[in-house]
């Protein structure tokens, strides 16, 4: 390392040190090599800098296979609980990289904070619907004008994206990321679309809700949420394009692109989110980051609520309920967007970055 300039390395936290202690034991054992990408990544090194720990922590999908296979879990004196150690190092990294940083702690850790944010978001939308009631308009534009929606959601979408970008840049610097090639992206997305790291290698899924038995239930629910979210996002995106490029404003019929994407998306998001919440009550708390449990739970419920309120809004088309359901749904969406850089949502971005970095290190 050149000594003629000072490099800013983050102070090693106790989470990082504990994860490093455990990873060094794992590297002398290697029995878990077949489960996921974390263990092959460990075997590529002999010593682990703080950035290496951050990378491994974000590469871990918390499938818990390694915990149940481990001969060194407590009461053994080596006290290995790698899913927990990495979950805590991961959470620590998200809080360090968040911008502005003070927002990350409360929403990662506290379900109450998320609930309060949701109430504020809903209140804001109800106020907007009341105070800025349009004179005319069709469908839900009779409740809130297109201009108002755009002026609320454009910054509410772009500002969080900017915050996530700032965080990802700090992550990339800490893990020593290289310029990204198409091959790296392809490899990372191939893992993500199948959620390969929750497959347990040749075993059937992960060890989440049934102790040491493998199931794919959590993997399926996670994919439902992920694809549901992406479909909803695509629905909104297609509607925006139709509005501006094709001069086709809402409302859209059942066989329009926004609805064909949005309805299955909303269903997947709602049911997947509920499923994740139920699984979360069955999983062993102490194999994740226990302090984050409340924030994570509130986040999946918020996702599910966002999907459900969107479906309800569509079902209520043409009725008086729209005036209540529209601000309810938009308030949830607003809260979700604004919290994205500071809540569990951010894991998707760091996870993808970790998969890209892993693809680089493998090549």
């Amino acid at each position: 390392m050149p000594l003629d300039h000072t490099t800013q390395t983050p102070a090693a936290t106790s989470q990082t040190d504990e994860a490093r202690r455990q990873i060094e034991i794992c590297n002398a054992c290697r029995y878990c090599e077949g489960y996921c990408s974390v263990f092959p990544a460990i075997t590529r090194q002999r010593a682990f800098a703080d950035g290496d720990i951050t990378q491994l922590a974000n590469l871990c999908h918390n499938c818990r296979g390694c915990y149940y296979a481990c001969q060194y879990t407590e009461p053994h004196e080596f006290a290995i609980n790698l899913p927990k150690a990495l979950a805590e190092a991961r959470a620590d990294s998200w809080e360090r990289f968040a911008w502005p940083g003070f927002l990350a702690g409360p929403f990662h850790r506290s379900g109450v904070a998320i609930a309060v944010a949701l109430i504020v978001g809903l209140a804001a939308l109800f106020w907007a619907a009341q105070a800025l009631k349009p004179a005319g308009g069709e469908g839900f534009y009779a409740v809130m004008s297109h201009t108002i929606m755009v002026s609320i959601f454009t910054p509410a979408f772009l500002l969080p994206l900017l915050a996530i970008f700032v965080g990802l840049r700090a992550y990339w610097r800490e893990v020593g990321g290289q310029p990204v090639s198409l091959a790296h992206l392809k490899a990372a997305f191939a893992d993500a679309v199948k959620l390969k790291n929750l497959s347990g290698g040749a075993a059937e899924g992960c060890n989440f809700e049934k102790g040491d038995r493998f199931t794919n239930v959590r993997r399926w629910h996670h994919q439902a949420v992920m694809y549901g979210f992406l479909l909803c996002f695509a629905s909104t995106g297609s509607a925006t394009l139709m509005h501006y490029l094709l001069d086709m404003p809402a409302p859209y019929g059942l066989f329009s692109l926004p609805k064909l994407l949005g309805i299955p998306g909303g269903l997947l998001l709602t049911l997947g989110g509920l499923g994740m919440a139920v699984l979360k009550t069955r999983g062993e708390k102490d194999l994740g980051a226990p302090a984050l449990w409340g924030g994570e739970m509130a986040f999946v419920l918020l996702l599910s609520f966002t999907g459900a309120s969107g479906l309800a809004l569509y079902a209520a088309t043409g009725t008086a309920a729209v005036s209540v359901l529209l601000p309810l749904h938009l308030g949830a969406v607003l809260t979700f967007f604004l919290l994205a850089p500071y809540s569990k949502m951010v894991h998707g971005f760091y996870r993808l970055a970790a998969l890209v970095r892993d693809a680089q290190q493998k090549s």
Partner: protein
Amino acid sequence: MLGRTARRRREALSEITDKVWDVVVVGGGNAALCAAIEAAEAGCRVIILEGAPKTYRGGNSRHTRNFRCMHQGPLSVLTDSYEEDEYFNDLLLVTKGNTDEDLARLAIRTSESCLPWMEAHGVRFQPSLSGTLSLGRTNAFFLGGGKALVNAYYNTAADLGVEVVYEAQVKHVEIEGGRFQAVAVEIAGAAPCRVEGRTIVLASGGFQGDIDWLARAWGPAARNFLIRGTPYNRGVVLKDMLDQGADTVGDPTQCHAVAIDGRAPKFDGGIVTRLDCVPFSVVVNKDGERFYDEGEDVWPKRYAIWGRLVAAQPDQVAYSIIDAKSSTLFMPSVFPAVQSDTLEGLAEQMGLPAAKVRETVDAFNAACREGDFHPTELDGLATDGVEPRKTNWARPITEPPFYGYSLRPGVTFTYLGLKVDATARVTMEGQKLKNVWAAGEIMAGSILGEGYLAGFGMTIGTVFGRIAGQEAAKGATRGVNSNAA
């Protein structure tokens, strides 16, 4: 609450003691589980009495990682072929012929059909682990290691309705007129009780967890041995059977022992305590003297003899010293090396006589010759003019920093055990017991007279566990018929 728990425990206990089980399985490792699963699949009511608490269930199996398997062509994760004769020859080499050929060949031949059976009962395999490529053809590695295998078998057994009792130490096997009647058991939190059965499978391991017994066999040196596996294999059942006159095989001083990191825990250190640096090092005893050829062969073929070599040194300890140029040639160790910029500094930190270590290393360095160094193969880079010679990978120890590791003998399992026949039946004073079978480390001495072959313990456990389970199931059914008649 407490009262209710106690009552529930009493009820649970009476469910165990009120009936006559078809098959009582003593022990809770690989062999025990294979036997229990086979017997349960044959329709028997089976109980497993595991001495360890649930978190430590599985005996030494939870520390294992692979299964040595004969195969006539590619099989699951195994490449190429590994035929009976080659397998048997490998066994002959390590045991120096000290084996029972019929039983050994039975284990080897049956291993081929065991692998698909294991997969069908929940075990998952993966290609060989990094750092163990030399075993890719002969050994099938368990995905997640031995504890994952143990978990899979416990789940399979639970699905088959097998009753499992943890912290259940069998103290005595009641045998009358060549027939097993019941076992005396101490279950944690309950009064001593009797569990009756029509047949019994003994799969409770060796006695290496009983240091006093080791010391009686080995002398006081054994008190400095480390036990790599479970502390629960104390040989209680083995001793009870021997006291009753069961026939034995194996020498009490023979065991699978390797040289491991001297800082390892007394028990249960498992795989991570191994040290692979010996071939690239100079190894001295506590007096600073070399005592054996460190480069005799590649480490996987030699690590098993170093347990005995170190056991023969004063205080049963040795020290492996390398320099900077060898520091990354072997698998990472779990404990960091002792490190110093000078050889004398290293010797002092390790409590060795510095002047003597300097003299030994200087003599070794002077005997090293120029030549090509190949860390992964026998490179013939030998010393010239030093005793003992180092016959491969001999490079002078000169480049700071210097690194040192202490070595101690680490016992995996003992070979003194019960004599069995090809149906895993136990004999007493030359007579076959009517309804007693044994499997796993408690009888492995029948096949492993000395030495060790990687993955062969799991082969013996699986093959004889399955045989014992099948035979016990047959015996239990016969027993029912004869009682009815």
